[in-house]
């Protein structure tokens, strides 16, 4: 496998968020700060690697007729592990992400990779595919979260850099801000993707 090419694809031209517009629910909902974005991204990456690995292992056993339910059970198992693991280790982060962790189950990226890649490729390749796509997802969420945090809360990774009484653009931590920022981000990422020779 060509890693440089894979990197270019998953981070830019076929990035889960900006290239394929998958997983919009967590993308828009949790990116009110950069830290939340990274947390959600890494949780998804873990699930993606785990589910890709197991589904690739079982690709010759799972009957085609019931592959979707089988995939969902595998994915849901990993999500539950993440949910309980986060609660046991990073309690504070779990408090902010709480509601969205169970929703990783229905994140299209994961089912998408299972269907399009893991069910047709070798175990190692699927595992790496999961890692790259997960990191690509994290990358987009981090950028989105950082922009919204700077404009909306006047902080970078929780560190405030503006004076106490300075009013920030609150809109950006709210839902409309997520859509606006994502829109501009798509424009930028499409430019970069074109420059890189994708689509």
């Amino acid at each position: 496998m060509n890693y440089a090419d894979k990197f270019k694809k998953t981070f830019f031209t076929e990035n889960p968020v900006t290239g394929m517009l998958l997983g919009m629910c967590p993308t828009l909902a949790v990116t009110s700060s950069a830290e939340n974005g990274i947390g959600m991204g890494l949780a998804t990456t873990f699930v993606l690697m785990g589910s890709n690995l197991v589904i690739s292992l079982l690709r010759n056993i799972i009957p085609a007729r019931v592959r979707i339910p089988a995939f969902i059970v595998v994915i849901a198992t990993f999500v539950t592990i993440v949910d309980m693991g986060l609660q046991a280790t990073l309690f504070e982060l779990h408090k902010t992400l709480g509601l969205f962790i169970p929703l990783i189950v229905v994140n299209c990226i994961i089912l998408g990779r299972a269907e399009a890649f893991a069910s047709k490729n070798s175990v190692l390749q699927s595992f790496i595919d999961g890692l790259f796509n997960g990191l690509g997802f994290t990358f987009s969420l981090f950028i989105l979260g950082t922009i919204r945090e700077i404009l909306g809360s006047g902080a970078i990774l929780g560190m405030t850099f503006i004076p106490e009484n300075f009013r920030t653009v609150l809109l950006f931590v709210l839902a409309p801000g997520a859509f606006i920022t994502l829109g501009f981000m798509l424009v930028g990422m499409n430019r970069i993707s074109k420059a890189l020779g994708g689509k």
Partner: protein
Amino acid sequence: MGKQESGLKVILVLVLIAMFSAILLAYVNQVTREPIAANKKAETQKAIKVVLAGLKDISYPENPTDIQIDNSGAGYFEAKYDNGKTAGYAVIVKGPGGFTNDFDMMVGLDSSGKIIDTYVLDHKETPGLGDGMQKEPFKNQFRGRQLNDTEWKVKKDKGDIDAITAATITSRAFTKGVWRALQVYKTLREDQK
């Protein structure tokens, strides 16, 4: 993947996958149960320290005592001095009807019923707006207030509490939560008489 598998194989594979998932999850649940419970307890203990700040040489039970107030479940920790006298209460109540849903908060009261401090345990209010209830300017106005010296409503509803800008609903729920905690105090005091 084959073309058309027999029904038996389909069922068998699904059952096996589900079974392995269940076993794995049972194991993970067992491993994480204690750390999770410990984390929750640590959070509560941290909250008690905050809301009863300033009271010296006190001890309080490990688990809250349950109580019903305003048709809603609440709990309290009674803090005592070494000589057995009541130093104050840390009351856990629900702030009813927040912007997303009810949230859990803790209110610390000294033995005369004055509010020492407040702490939000678990909430899903809007970041940047509703979560201002955890910040200084809003929290500060509650300190030192009592049940009878305050109209427990936000200013918009002709009360005494300054609501957070653009988060009146959260402020209302928070104020109601504090009021509930004061009701718990009142009930406890009446029981003692």
